[in-house]
């Protein structure tokens, strides 16, 4: 499977991974073919490499729970790059791209910041911020583009305060982060964006060493960098992950969440009638939208998965958007149902790499969506849905713009 050469006459060429979405909250129609071939099937990456797509929910869990057999080591040559930007990401070494026990040492340094209680304590501040943003939207009047006016600043301001990154720098780091997480970003472009973010964060950390603040980065400087538990480079790479993952994904989820609710008026009405449904509605949005379309691993040893024989070195892509629509795990999986109450989707991943910021993301989504729906009851799209620019294959999924009126 690691063979990157392919005969031009090969008519048994597997389908491509990733593929672009038509409707931004639906998996690409081309992924249906994966499922037709079973829970684990062959796909071809942009560079011609053939890897295994895991589209069954049970098989996806099996891969994600078994970090010893299915490695996340991004530096390793067998780790598949599903888009050019992942070649650049190999040089950014933090816990998302490491296996235990190396991974676990870094992750443990962050656990106390992301507990359910700590996130609960952030809620009043997030609510104030969301209210101020809606005030500004109302004051300006329609039409508003909810991406720059709402969906992006909410998680961006929250992660800045949490990390101790000055929000005054947001235009710079949002633009660079966008280059890092966009599917169509070239190798050179993503390498440049990573380099710019790294040098910005390196400089910020040096400044904080002289003038400490009270963010997570300051804590990591005092408790880990100062005692040699983290090198400066390691701290910069961790900061980069937290900053990028802390705002781009949630921003995409907020905007796409608004769109998904607007396109399901019966479900939107059910949520408006019963605000107690908010947590399950957010969970269902996470399952249904699957903004992180997939996640890669490689096999460290020969193994079997979903009836396929996987060889050591084979690349594996867990197709989150398809696993979340597996009928065996989610009856009527194609229906968006705010009262479903299913929490076993894998939108935050599963296993030791499951998103460390997931409860912060949930809080931001709950507060942002409920506040917007309550304060702008006439909220609707200002353009036809077909005119919304959909994000490219191979990156965080969503829409680039969301013009609304009310």
């Amino acid at each position: 499977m690691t063979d990157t050469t392919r005969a031009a006459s090969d008519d048994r060429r597997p389908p491509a991974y990733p593929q672009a979405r038509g409707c931004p909250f639906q998996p690409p129609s081309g992924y249906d073919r994966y499922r037709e071939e079973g829970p684990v099937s062959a796909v071809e990456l942009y560079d011609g490499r053939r890897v295994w797509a895991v589209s069954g929910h049970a098989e996806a869990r099996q891969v994600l729970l078994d970090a010893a057999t299915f490695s996340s080591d991004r530096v390793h040559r067998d780790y598949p790059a599903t888009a050019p930007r992942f070649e650049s990401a190999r040089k950014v070494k933090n816990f998302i791209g490491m296996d235990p026990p190396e991974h676990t040492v870094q992750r443990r340094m962050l656990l106390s910041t992301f507990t359910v209680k700590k996130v609960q304590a952030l809620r009043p501040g997030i609510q104030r911020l969301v209210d101020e943003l809606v005030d500004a939207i109302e004051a300006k009047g329609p039409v508003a583009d909810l991406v720059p006016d709402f969906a992006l600043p909410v998680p961006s301001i929250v992660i800045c305060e949490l990390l101790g990154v000055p929000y005054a720098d947001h235009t710079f780091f949002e633009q660079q982060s966008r280059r890092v997480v966009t599917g169509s970003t070239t190798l050179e472009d993503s390498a440049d964006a990573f380099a710019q973010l790294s040098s910005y964060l390196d400089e910020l950390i040096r400044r904080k060493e002289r003038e400490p603040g009270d963010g997570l980065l300051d804590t990591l400087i005092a408790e880990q960098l100062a005692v040699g538990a983290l090198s400066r480079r390691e701290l910069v790479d961790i900061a980069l992950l937290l900053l990028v993952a802390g705002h781009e994904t949630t921003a995409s989820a907020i905007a796409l969440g608004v769109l998904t609710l607007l396109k399901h008026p019966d479900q939107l009405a059910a949520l408006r009638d019963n605000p107690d449904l908010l947590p399950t509605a957010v969970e269902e949005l996470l399952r249904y939208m699957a903004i992180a379309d997939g996640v890669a691993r490689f096999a460290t040893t020969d193994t079997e998965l979903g009836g396929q024989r996987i060889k050591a070195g084979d690349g594996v892509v867990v197709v989150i958007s398809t696993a979340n629509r597996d009928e065996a795990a989610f009856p009527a999986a194609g229906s968006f149902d705010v009262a479903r109450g299913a929490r076993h989707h894998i939108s935050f991943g599963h296993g030791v790499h499951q998103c460390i910021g997931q409860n912060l993301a949930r809080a931001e989504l709950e507060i942002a969506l409920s506040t917007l729906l309550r304060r702008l009851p006439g909220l609707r799209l200002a353009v036809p849905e077909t005119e919304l620019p959909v994000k490219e294959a191979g990156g965080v999924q969503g829409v680039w713009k969301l013009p609304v009126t009310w």
Partner: protein
Amino acid sequence: MRITADTGRCLGAGQCVLSAPDRFDQSTEGTVLVLTPSVEGEAEEARLRETIALCPSQAIALEA
């Protein structure tokens, strides 16, 4: 049955706290705390098995 937790495996996702807040909490370090370990009745056992399946680091279990 009793709930057991392995803080050495726990990676602080907090799924147990969200799923069964009456049973689980997190320490200030961010790892799992079992509030009431004793489990009685099939319905309660079934509910906790769902919670256990949600744990991404397989840090909680039911033992006889």
